[in-house]
C-alpha cells in the first residue's frame, strides 16, 4: 500500500515537474537569454568598458547613426592597439587578420528575428543607457545576452517609460505612448 502511495506520489511529482519544466522552457522559446559563446578573439568588455572606462559609442559608433550598433572594424581597435599591448596573443590575432586581409568571424550574441525592426540610433537619441538592454556589459569578461529580448520585454519597457514624443508633440503628455503610437505593431514589424 505504502509502496503504491509512494509510486503514485512519485509519478504525480514527475508529471508536475515535467509540466512545470515545459511551461518554464516554453516561455523561453526563441529567447537566447544567457547565451555566452566563445569568440574568435577573447575580447573583454570588462577591461575596456569597465576598467579603462572607454565609452560604448567610441567603438560602437554605428549605434548613434543607424540601425545597427555594429561590431567595430579592426581599424578602430588599432587606434589604440598599434601602440598598446602589441604582443598580447589576442592582439596578434587581430594584427594577423589585418595583414592577411581576412575579416574576423565574430559570433553574434544579440539576435533579433528578421521580422522585428530595431533601430539603435532611435534609442541612443532618447538617452536610453546601453546597459538597460545589454546588462552590465562593463563587468562581462565574455559577452553575454543579459536580457530576454522578447517582444513582451520590449513592450513592458515602452509601457512603463512611454516614448520620447517628437518635437512637434511636446505638448502631449509624455506618458501618452498610445497617442503617438509607441505600441503600434507596424512600429517594428514591417
Amino acid at each position: 500500500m505504502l509502496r503504491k502511495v509512494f509510486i503514485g506520489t512519485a509519478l504525480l511529482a514527475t508529471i508536475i515537474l515535467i509540466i512545470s519544466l515545459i511551461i518554464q522552457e516554453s516561455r523561453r522559446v526563441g529567447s537566447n537569454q544567457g547565451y555566452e559563446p566563445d569568440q574568435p578573439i577573447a575580447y573583454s568588455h570588462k577591461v575596456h568598458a569597465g576598467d579603462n572606462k572607454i565609452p560604448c559609442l567610441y567603438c560602437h559608433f554605428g549605434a548613434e547613426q543607424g540601425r545597427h550598433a555594429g561590431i567595430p572594424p579592426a581599424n578602430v581597435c588599432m587606434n589604440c592597439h598599434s601602440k598598446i599591448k602589441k604582443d598580447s596573443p589576442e592582439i596578434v590575432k587581430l594584427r594577423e587578420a589585418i595583414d592577411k586581409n581576412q575579416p574576423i568571424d565574430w559570433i553574434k550574441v544579440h539576435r533579433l528575428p528578421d521580422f522585428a525592426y530595431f533601430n539603435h540610433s532611435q534609442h541612443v537619441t532618447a538617452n536610453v543607457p546601453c546597459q538597460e538592454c545589454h546588462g552590465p556589459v562593463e563587468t562581462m569578461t565574455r559577452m553575454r545576452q543579459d536580457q530576454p529580448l522578447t517582444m513582451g520585454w520590449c513592450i513592458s519597457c515602452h509601457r512603463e517609460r512611454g516614448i520620447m514624443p517628437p518635437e512637434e508633440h511636446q505638448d502631449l503628455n509624455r506618458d501618452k505612448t498610445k497617442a503617438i503610437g509607441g505600441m503600434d505593431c507596424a512600429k517594428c514589424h514591417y
Partner: protein
Amino acid sequence: MNSDDKKYWKGLEELREEPQFLEVRSKEFPEEISQTTRRNFLKLMGFSFTGAALAACARMPVEKAIPFLIKPEEVVPGVANWYATTCAGCTASCGLLAKVRDGRPIKIEGNAESPLFQGGACAVGQATVLSLYDDERLKKPLWLGNAASWEEIDQSIGKELKDIVNRGGKIVILSGTIVSPTTRALLNEWCQTFTNARHVVYDAVSASAILSANEKSFGVKALPHYRFDLAKLVVGLNADFLGTWISPVEFTRAYTQHRMPSHDMTRHIQFESGMSLTGSNADRRIPINPSEEGPTALTLLKEISNLKSGAGSSNETAQDLWKHRGESLVVSGSNHVDVQIVVNAMNALLGNIGKTVDLDNVSLQKQGVDDEMNRLVDEMNRGEIQGLILYGVNPAYDFPDSDRFISGLKKVPCSVSFSDRLDETSSLVQAVCPDAHFLESWNDAEPVQGALSLTQPVLRPLFATRSAQESLLTWMGKNVDYYTYLRDYWREKIYPLSTGLYLTFDNFWDLSVQNGVLSLPAQTPTERNFSGSVPIAFQNPPKGLEVHLYEKIGLRDGRHANNPWLQELPDPVTKITWDNYAALSPKTASALGLEEGDVVLVKNDYVSLELPVQIQPGQAALTVSVALGYGRTHCGKAGNNVGVNAYPLIPHPTGFRVEKTGRKVALAATQTHHSMEGRPIVKETILAEYINNPSAGNEEHEKLLTLWEEWPKEGRAWGMSIDLNACTGCSACIISCQAENNVPVVGKDEVTRRREMHWIRLDRYYSGPEENPETVHQPMMCQHCGNAPCETVCPVLATVHSTDGLNQQVYNRCVGTRYCANNCPYKVRRFNWFDYAHNDQFDYTMNSELGTMVLNPDIVVRSRGVMEKCSLCIQRIQEGKLQAKREGRPLKDGEIRVACEQSCPAQAITFGDLNEKESRVAQQNHDGRFYHVLEELNVRPVVGYLTKVRNK
C-alpha cells in the same frame, strides 16, 4: 456629365455580360476549392502540432557577425548611401539616384536635380537594378565559346586586329545609339587608330525617318528636342510619347505640367492604330490604320494651309492647330520619311520650329540610320568586313532580316561582342567580352545637347566583366583606364563650356559627379525655314490587314526580356503579362469568328507568326497590333521563349490575313480580376463643366453615420491623394513598389490563377463605344480605411489599426484565413500561396543568392500562408520620423515620400499628414475634385482621388 450616366467596363466580357464572366463574378472564390475530409484534417492538425513542438526544441543556429577590417569612411552598416548616376535602360538616359545599402544597390530613383527628367524614373529604369543581379550575365570573357582570361582575350583580339590592319581589311564597330559624348570621342579615336575602321549606329527601334526628314526639310540630320512643356496642343500620330517613344519620362513630366485643369490646359489629340498608353490619355483619339498616317498628315497640312491662306477649313483638328500656332506640336512615330516630311511641313507652317520643335539643342537619344545598317549587312554578306565589334546590339534577334545578318556574320573572320550575356548574336561570335552593368561603370551621357549627365559606379563589378570602353582602350594600345579618359575629356571639352563658379577643375568634377547632372548654356535659336517638297499623295496599301508594331512599356525593344519584374508588369492598356499577342478590334474579331485567346496565324506572302488573339477596344478596324521585344531565345531562363518575335514583320507590314489554328491559350491578364461590379469608382468631367463648377462630376457625396468610435485626432494622420487627371498609367509606381517592398514575382501560371502579388495595381476602365472608348487609369492600393472591414474579420488580430491612421498587416501574427482579403471592398490584399523566396518553382529573383541581393533589408520577405498588402511604405515613414526626431525638429511636409509617389513621372500621387492643415494632402482633401472610392460603404479611407477632367 454625371459619372452615374456612364457605364464603365474593364473588359469586353463585362460589357457584354457574358455568362462565364457573370458566373465567375458571382462566386466567392473564382477558383475551385479543394474538399478536405475530416480524417485528412485531423492528420494535418496532428502533423502540424508535432512539427511545431519539434521545431521549438531546436537550438538557434549560430550566426556570425563579420565587420569590416578597415571601414570605408562613408559606409555605416544599415544606413543607405545615395549616389547620382545615369540610366542605361534605354537611350533616354534619365538622371538617377541609386540607393546603396551595405555596398549593394537595392533601389533606383529619379534624380530631382535633372532639369530634363526632374526626378521621374520609368518602370524600365527602376527595374535595371534587378538586371545587375541577373544570374545569366556572363561571369568571364569567352573565346570561341570557352571561358578565358582577359589577358588571353586581349592578346588574341590584339593579334587579330593587327592582322586585319596588315591585310587592309575593314573593321566596323556596330553599336546602338551612343548617348555618351566621351564614348563617341573614344570610338572616333579608335576608328582613326585602325585604318579602314568605321562606326555604324543601329537602333532596333529607330527614329531614322525623323533624322532623314529633318535633313531634307531643315538641313539638320538630327532628332529635334520636342518641347511638350511649351505646347498647348499636342497632336500625335502613332507616337507613344508617354509610354515608349524617345524619352517618355521627360515627355510625361513636361506633358502633365499643363494638364492640370485650368483655362490654358493642354489639349491632346491622338491618331493611332493600336490603343497605346498615350492614346488612352488623349482628349480625342481617332483610330487609323498605319497606312493612313501619311494621308491623315497630308489632309491636316492641306487644311492648315487653307486656313493660312484664309480659305477656311471644316477640319476640327486643323482649326485647333491653327488657333494654337507657335504653341502646338505635331509628332509622329512613323518610320517613313515622307510622313515625317509632311509632319515637318506642318510644324513649320504652324511656326513651331524653334519653339516646340527645338532643332538648335537637338536630342541625341536616337542616332541610328537604317540605310547604313542595311549597307553594312550587304558588305558583310559580300565578305568585305574583316572585323566586327558589336556593342550594345543584338541584330541576330532584332534585325528584321536576321538570317541575312547571321549569314553575313559567319563571313566575318573576327567578330567580338560586348554583350553581357550569351544572347542570340553573341552566341555566334568569336569573342564575347562582357560589358559591365552601368551601375558598375564610369560613363557620361548627353541626352539633349547641353544637358549632360554622369554615370558613376556604385559597386565593384560583381564578375570578371570589363566596361566596353576599357576593352576598346586596351585594344587600341592606350595605357589609360576609362575613368581617366572620361575625366580628361571633361577637363578639355566640357569644363571650358561650363558657366558655374568653380575653383578648379577638380572642384567642378567633384560637384558634377555628386550632382550627377550638368547644364551647359543653351544654343541661341537660328531661323530655320522648311525646304524641299512635300509628297503629293501616299500609295494605297495592298488588300488585307495591316500590322502595327509597337514597344511595350515593360520590355521595350526586348533587351530587358530576362527581367522578371518587367515580364510580370501588366501592360497598362491590355493588362496582360508575360506575353505578346495579336490585338484585333472587336468588330474584326467577330467578323473572323475569333475569341480572346484563340491562337491564330498572322501571315502574308513573306512572313507568318503564330499568336494568341487579344480583342482590344479602340483598335483600328483593319489593323493587327503586335508588340516587339518578345520571342527571345537566348536571354535567360525568365525571358526565353516568352511570346513571339515580331521584328521580321517590319519590312512587310501589309497584306495580312488571319487564320485560325483551332488552339486556344489563356493569356495571363490581370484585367477582369478584382471587378468593382459596375459601381462609380472613377469620376470624371469635362473642362467646360469644371470651370463652371470645380466639383463637377463629383457632386454626390455620402455622409453616413458610423457606429465606430472616431480615431483620435492627435498626432499624425497619414493620408494620400491621387490625381486621376495627372496619372497616365505608365506603371512606374508598380516597379517602384515592387523594388521597395520585396514583392515577389509569381510567373505566368500563377497570374492566370489571379495570384499576382503587386501591392499597387493600375485599374483601367473604359467607357463609351467599344470601337473607340475613353479610358481612365486608376492606381489602386490599400486605402487604409478608418473603419477597415478587414480588421473586423481577422480572428487573430493580424491586421489592426495604428494610431496614425494606417491599416497595419502583421505578418508574424497572420495565420492565413484570407477572411480579410474576402472582406476587402478594394481587393488589394495579396496572399502568399507559396514560399516564393524558397521554392524552385519560382526561380525568378529571390531563389538565387545573387537575386536576393536586390532585397530591401528593412522589409521582411513574407513566407507562405501570409497575407500582405500596401503598408504606405511604413519603413519610409518610420525613417523620416526618426530622422526628424534625431535632429530635434518637426517633420516637414513632403519630407517623407512613399515609393510610388517618389517614382511618379507625372507627380500624380501626394502623401502627407492630414492633421497638418498646410500639408499638400490636407489641401487636396478640400479640393472640389476630391472623393473617396466607394464612399457609400462608409469605410472612411485615407487614400482619396481627384476627378479626371477631359479637355474636350
